[in-house]
Every structure is written in structure tokens, then in C-alpha cells.
């Protein structure tokens, strides 16, 4: 409403921002597992997963993986049968999984754990790297029972932060 005679008015607005825990990650669209040349030794392949994360002072987080689509076509390797394993290393934020992990088609298996108050980039209390990364090395059993051919599986990585 406009005053009948000249005057000014002021108003205040309180601005609030809630900084939530958040995580994002990037994995390569594809990766090849190859033979080292010795007969019936495992196929191997490695790549890095990059991620950004922020956890609360009382929270934490994780990166897990799951074989969301087993090797196809049939007649070859099977993650459901325990043929695919991996190790994790060189995490730049958080702690990489320990030892060899068997990838599963039914449960999430660990890649990395994030502590409370973790944050990507900026240095100080946060990591100096942005994004952060963790290396994964996969091994796939080579069995004579596999039929020859090309097989593909899908691995889904999930980052969670609280």
C-alpha cells in the first residue's frame, strides 16, 4: 500500500541455508578385463571411481558396489557364482575396503567408508583433492568351463552420506 504522503519503509528477510550431507560419484562407462597371457589365470582390470562427499559431524558415508546385471550371455563367467572379486586402494578421502571382496549380485559390498565431517576439496578440514578418488582392481576367474565369447556385466556403484 502506498502511503498518502511521502515516507519510506524497511523490511528484513531472514535467509537460511541448510547444508545437507551429499555424495556424488563417477565411474567409467566401461572397462575391460583382460588375460595376463598365462593360461587359466584370472582376467584382470582396474579403474578409478571419483567422488565428492560431505557428511555431518555425527554422520558418515560409504561407497558400495553391486553387480546389477550378471555376465551375459550365458555359458561364461558368473558373478552370482563368485567369479568376480576386487580390491580397493588409494582412497583420497575415507578408508578403502580391506582385502579381497567378492562382488555380489544380491548384496552391496564395500568399496569405501567415509568418516563423520568428511568433505571433498578446499583443504583444511576437508580433503585437498577435488574430486576424490579410489582405485579398484577386479579379477575374474578364468575357467576352462567357460564357452569362448565376449561377456559383459554391469556394476553399479552407490555413494551414501549422512
Amino acid at each position, binding site marked *: 500500500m502506498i502511503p498518502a504522503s511521502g515516507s519510506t519503509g524497511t523490511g528484513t528477510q531472514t535467509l537460511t541455508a*541448510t547444508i*545437507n*550431507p*551429499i*555424495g*556424488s*560419484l*563417477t*565411474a*567409467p*562407462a*566401461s*572397462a*575391460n*578385463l*583382460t*588375460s595376463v597371457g598365462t*593360461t*587359466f589365470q584370472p*582376467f584382470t*582390470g582396474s*579403474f578409478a*571411481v571419483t567422488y565428492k562427499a560431505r557428511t*555431518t559431524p555425527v554422520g558418515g558415508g560409504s561407497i558400495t558396489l553391486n553387480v*546389477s546385471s550378471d*555376465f551375459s550371455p550365458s555359458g*561364461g*563367467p558368473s558373478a552370482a557364482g563368485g567369479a*568376480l572379486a576386487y580390491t580397493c586402494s588409494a582412497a583420497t578421502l575415507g578408508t578403502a575396503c580391506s582385502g579381497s571382496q567378492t562382488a555380489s549380485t544380491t548384496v552391496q559390498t564395500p568399496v569405501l567408508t567415509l568418516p563423520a565431517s568428511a568433505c571433498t576439496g578446499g583443504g583444511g578440514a576437508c580433503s585437498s583433492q577435488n574430486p576424490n578418488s579410489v582405485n579398484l582392481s*577386479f579379477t*575374474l*576367474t*578364468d*575357467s*576352462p*568351463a*567357460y*564357452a*569362448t*565369447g*565376449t*561377456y*559383459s*556385466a*554391469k*556394476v*553399479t*556403484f*552407490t*555413494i*551414501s*552420506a*549422512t
Partner: protein
Amino acid sequence: MRRYVTIVACCLLALTGLAQAQNTTSLSVVVGPEAALTVTTGTTNLSTASTTFGNPYTGTTSLTYQVRTTKSTGSGSITLKITTDFSGTGGPSVGTPPSTGDALTYTCTVSTPGTACTGSQTASLTTATAFATFVAGANSTKAGNSASASWSLTDDPVYATGTYAATATFTISAS
């Protein structure tokens, strides 16, 4: 108004409770033909129960093989060759038998998916001889399948007494 505020508080809690994101990688592997074998008998002793030249020296060498041949178009084989003739002089010899008819021969026993050689084969110092064959799409078990060679060495009176040793090499291939 009170109900409205309650709903907002509920949603904020949900938003701050857990954040999740996903990404997917496709893993690919090319499985090609491969083959390997292990001779499980360290040393095969050829012996005879006869004391009157009535029977040859015999013995058995066992081995385990792993094989994977290409579907539809592949094949494979196991061959053997005498890579070192019987040592010493005056004894048996694969390369230069002292008498006509002297020979080191063998028969083959091969579990599926292999097909054993047929009949008695004469081992050679110069040529790899047949032991087993594999058809297209042949797959052994992961642990390997069994096979064995049953040897027979002529007992010739002209052999000088003594101990003689030769080396037989088995070769497996797959395509």
C-alpha cells in the same frame, strides 16, 4: 497452520537424513581358447615281471589337462614327443633301436571331452605323435580332466644291463 508446520519439519528431516547417488560401469571380458596340462607322474618307471624276455617293460604316465576350444570352429590336441632319447649306450633307443622291431609304444586313455588316440602309437624322437583330440566347443572342468599314457618298451636281449632314462614331452593346443 500447525499441521502445515509439522509437515515441513518432517520433510526437512528426510532431506538431511541420507543422500545417495549411483553410477554404473560395464565390465567386459573376451574369453578365448586356452589349454594347459600338468604331468602328475613325476617319473614313470618302466618295469617287467618277466625274466625271460616274454613281456615288455611297461608303465603309466598320468596327466591332467584343461582345455577350452572355440565354439563351432575350434579344435585342439595333445601330442607327445620323445625329446631326450634313452641315455647311455647299449640300451634301448627310440631314435636308433638296436634291433628291428624294438620300439617304445603307448596307448592313450583320455576322459571326456577329449578323444583318445586309437590303438598303439609308436613314440618318436622326430615327430609329435597323437595322444588326444578335442572338437569345437570342448570344455574341461576347472580342476582339469584326467588322461594317461600306458607305455610299452620292447625287452631286447641285446640291451646292456643298466638304468636308462628318456624324456617324453606332452603338448596341448587349442584354437
